[in-house]
């Protein structure tokens, strides 16, 4: 683990040169896994995460099926090599808690009533962790759900807000997360319904109000990136489909242009 820096903010700039209200760079790719019904690869600062959605599909064991709705299942998993010191593979208490609150971040937006007796499975794999993996996982999962065509009230967008050097800052990087004074991951819809909220550290109520305000602007920015990624993916697909209507060149087998 790196040493605690003396100052996190110098001349209004953070350790990686960002302003206090600036996100780390985000890169999104939708539909990256062949077998999954929907998928998304997302890089956010040093985080690299993959999300896949399977379903709606039959839920086993059958006694867990709900007659009136689908069951959303969410598994957050860290690759053993994703952190400095190898983590033991398999669920930890931390990952079980994150899986629970992440599932609850999507339950309010997924129209589960359309698919009784089924499961909608969301799998998030953290390939490289660099502070804010749960929010990165939620953003990727949101797009994987959309990619799978799961009907939702809207996308869920997440980001963390924290406190370092006594200031409220957006999107903590690793040093800020390790040595900062507070960490507040938030997920919300574009309609400002909060679907995930956790906090640890130390904040006065006034600081908490400000942190929540900053989280709003962060989630707005993430939402815009998510929307753009979907437009980019699906406007491209649409163009490909139109091109496919042209007569295929001689010798080319019929088939999906994507494969």
């Amino acid at each position, binding site marked *: 683990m790196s040493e605690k820096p003396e100052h996190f903010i110098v001349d209004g700039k953070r350790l990686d040169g960002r302003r206090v209200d600036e996100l780390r760079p985000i890169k999104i790719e939708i539909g990256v896994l062949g077998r999954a019904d929907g998928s998304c690869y997302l890089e956010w600062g040093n985080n690299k995460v993959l999300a896949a959605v399977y379903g709606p599909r039959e839920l086993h064991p059958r006694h867990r099926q709900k007659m009136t709705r689908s069951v959303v299942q969410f598994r957050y998993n860290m690759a053993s090599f994703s952190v400095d010191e190898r983590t033991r593979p398999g669920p930890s*208490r931390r990952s079980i*808690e994150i899986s629970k609150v992440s599932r609850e971040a999507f339950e309010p937006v997924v129209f589960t009533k359309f698919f009784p007796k089924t499961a909608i499975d969301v799998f998030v794999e953290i390939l490289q962790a660099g502070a804010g993996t749960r929010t990165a996982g939620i953003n990727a999962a949101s797009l994987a759900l959309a990619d799978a065509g799961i009907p939702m009230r809207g996308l869920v967008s997440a980001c963390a807000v924290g406190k370092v050097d006594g200031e409220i800052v957006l999107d903590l990087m690793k040093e800020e997360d390790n040595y900062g004074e507070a960490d507040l991951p938030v997920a919300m819809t574009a309609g400002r319904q*909060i*679907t995930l909220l956790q906090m640890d550290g*130390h904040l006065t109520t006034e600081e908490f109000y400000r942190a929540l305000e900053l989280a709003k602007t962060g989630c707005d920015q993430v939402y815009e990136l998510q929307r753009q990624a979907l437009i980019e993916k699906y406007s491209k697909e649409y163009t490909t489909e139109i091109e496919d209507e042209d007569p295929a060149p001689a010798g080319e087998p019929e088939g999906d242009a994507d494969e």
Partner: protein
Amino acid sequence: MSDDVMTEIQRDHLFNLILKGEREDGRAFDEFREISIETDVIGTADGSARVKLGKTELLVGVKIQPGEPFPDTPDKGVLITNAELVPLASPEYEAGPPREGAIEIARVVDRGIRESKSLDLEKLCITAGEKVWIIFIDIHVLNNEGNILDAASMGSIAALLTAKLPRAQYGMGDDIPLPVRDIPVAVTVIEFGGALLLDPSLTEGAIASTSLITITNSDGSISGMQKSGSESLTIEQVLQAVDMAKNAAAGIREKFLEV
């Protein structure tokens, strides 16, 4: 299926009461059930508390023993919190390894105590890098009639406040009180039919599954939060819930936990 129907009927019943400004047991929305905290109830523990919250009942035992520090915090004591939802306490509980509900309770209680810096972990170092005090908080639920989390939080801090470092047992001098600096209190606020309620009963908690838990300290600052449950909350609801939790925590602290 019949459970689903019963839930629907109960939901309607509670919802109609809420519209009239009432609850099933006649309490006000911001009123706790009767609280009683009894400390030093288990002779074999280094600190203990029995909490009754209405008919909900649980025991918290603190055990303290010397052990190895974590490699990344060689000069700090170790805090380990665990919750057991044993099958004696509810027909819904099953024997076996802790599930997500128990893990969430333990981790949220732990977060409050850890992040408030209530326990002075630096003072719990015996020989840096070699030997530190390990504090085990074990939450043992005896009867679940709702709101286990708040009861567990009160019980944990009450047990810590009476706990003694068992130095004599390990040939390190006389027993001394555990260094506790703050009294963090977790308060759950549930949302149901647009209303916010404190101290959910078993039925209220089962039906209005969405809650915001806020852990506040003696100076009113926040040291932990968790949204739990499958619905979303608005920003206004979050702010109001934080306020309700803070006020309730101040009352509980003053009445039951301050010496």
